[in-house]
């Protein structure tokens, strides 16, 4: 069973504004899935649907086998959630707030001290007095303190300093090893590439690509552009993706057998060629 299952969901808001359409992905236990896209692409809509804050118009959306809207309380029992917009009850202290959230989740208070020490959070301060970075830390502590099986984090590192970001990634890796399924939405492509196993790219409400991060890290994926004087009737090879042809200019990504590719290219009258490693930034910009 997948921890998170999203199958062909669609959500249209009032005035026919499409939130998401044809979004499908699954996340296994012990996996970190990155979710990237610009503002208004549909990331928050997808996450809010997962958290039961809105009902999708069609499609399947489950956490641990429970529908996120009709069986929301069961779906969220083992979920730790960090929203992008943070707002707390200002008069409560950090400690009291975390205890309140843990009671709402039916958890004990075992991990509070450990996590607050780890993230250097003062438990006696009122939540209304916290800076943005400290509010983020508080939200992260609340999500982790409930020993979740699923973590859903919407721009969790916004406002964190580089040291806290590193601590955050370290603890994510520990959670991953414990078997926690993690959905991490972010604008920061470097952090996604650094810690995720797979990444989904969303554009205008549609999930346009899901890639293994290993393809980028192991430099297996190459971006090739060449220009030829010949007219090629057919140009095809296993491992070739997203071929674009404009006149005599050929552009594509390749993660197949390089020797076979070089063999094929050597038979073509090429007068200009560029071969570069594809990183996540390139892949993202390709869709925009």
């Amino acid at each position, binding site marked *: 069973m997948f921890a998170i299952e999203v199958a062909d969901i669609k959500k249209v808001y009032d005035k026919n504004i499409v939130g998401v359409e044809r979004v499908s992905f699954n996340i296994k236990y012990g996996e970190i899935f990155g979710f990237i896209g610009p503002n208004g692409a549909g990331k928050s809509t997808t996450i809010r649907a997962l958290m*039961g804050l809105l009902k999708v118009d069609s499609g399947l959306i489950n956490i641990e086998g429970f529908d996120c809207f009709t069986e929301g*309380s069961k779906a*969220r029992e083992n979920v730790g959630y960090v929203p992008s*917009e943070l707002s707390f009850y200002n008069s409560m202290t950090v400690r009291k707030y975390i205890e309140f959230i843990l009671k*709402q989740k039916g958890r004990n208070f075992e991990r509070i001290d450990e996590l607050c020490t780890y993230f250097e959070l003062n438990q006696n301060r009122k939540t209304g007095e916290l800076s943005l970075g400290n509010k983020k830390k508080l939200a992260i502590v609340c999500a982790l303190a409930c020993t979740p*099986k699923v973590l859903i984090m919407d721009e969790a590192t916004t406002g964190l300093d580089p040291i806290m970001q590193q601590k955050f990634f370290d603890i994510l890796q520990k959670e991953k090893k414990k*078997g*926690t399924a993690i959905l991490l939405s972010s604008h920061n492509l470097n952090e996604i590439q650094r810690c995720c196993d797979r990444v989904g790219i969303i554009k205008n409400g549609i999930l346009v690509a899901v890639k293994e991060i290993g393809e980028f890290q192991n430099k297996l994926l190459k971006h090739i552009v060449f220009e030829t004087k010949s007219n090629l009737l057919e140009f095809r090879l296993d491992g070739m993706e997203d071929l674009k042809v404009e006149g005599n200019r050929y552009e594509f990504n390749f993660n197949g057998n390089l020797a076979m590719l070089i063999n094929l290219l050597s038979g073509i009258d090429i007068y200009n060629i560029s071969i570069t490693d594809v990183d996540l930034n390139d892949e993202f910009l390709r869709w925009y």
Partner: protein
Amino acid sequence: MGCKMDKTMKKRAINSLYCLEFNLQKKSIIWWFAVLAVLLIIEIAFYPLMNMMIGVIPDDVYNDFTDAGISFSFDSVTEYFLLQGVEVLALGGALFLCCFVASLLTRDFKGGQSELLYTNALNRNDIIMTKYANALTMTVLFNVVMLVVELLMMCIVDIKGIVFVPLITLFLYCLILHLILVSLVFGIYLLKVKSGFGIAIAIPLLLYFVTIIALSISHNDALKFIEFLTPFTLLYEITIESPFKVNWYSFAIYVVVVLAVLGFGYKKFKKRDL
């Protein structure tokens, strides 16, 4: 790692949410209680002065008022309170309780805390029921506290003039009135969770002014139906001689209206996007 939420944990979660609401509005509640209690105290403290003023009205003027159906003779502080004190209790309490309900439901959405409250293991049903329980508890608490304040003040002003049966009936009918208004406003705010306090203030004020109109034209048979448009008329028929008299038609109409609004609001809230 992870665990299932059993009944004990769920009860603990609901209790902590229930207590949270009172903690968050602690200062506001104390201020409202203090202000309304002071108003009641002043109202009752005026009784000896009012009696003195009535004593110096010339008989012919007094008879003219009585012929016009306006009676203001008070043989006891209880009778005085049944005529004069009801406004502070009924309207003042209604305004406070309706604003309390508005805050219960809208604060989370306007302040942004809804993302954290509605994404935990309690479902929407549990959260809404807990908030409704908060509203009902506050209604009962308010009326009990005001009853105690009334009785204490009456003991100081005219202890022999205390007649318990109509005062207890007034307390009960006022409690019912407030429960009706609180439930009505609760149902409306389930439909309009991001609204301001305007609805909470407008509804009791509007219904109260309809009551004033209904009482003013009580001799006009054609417009008598107006008294059924407002639940405040529950309170205006209680006298020392007839402490149990109540406008049951108005009560029945409002129970039906409130159940319909609550049911509709609840059904819509369960399905809405938050």
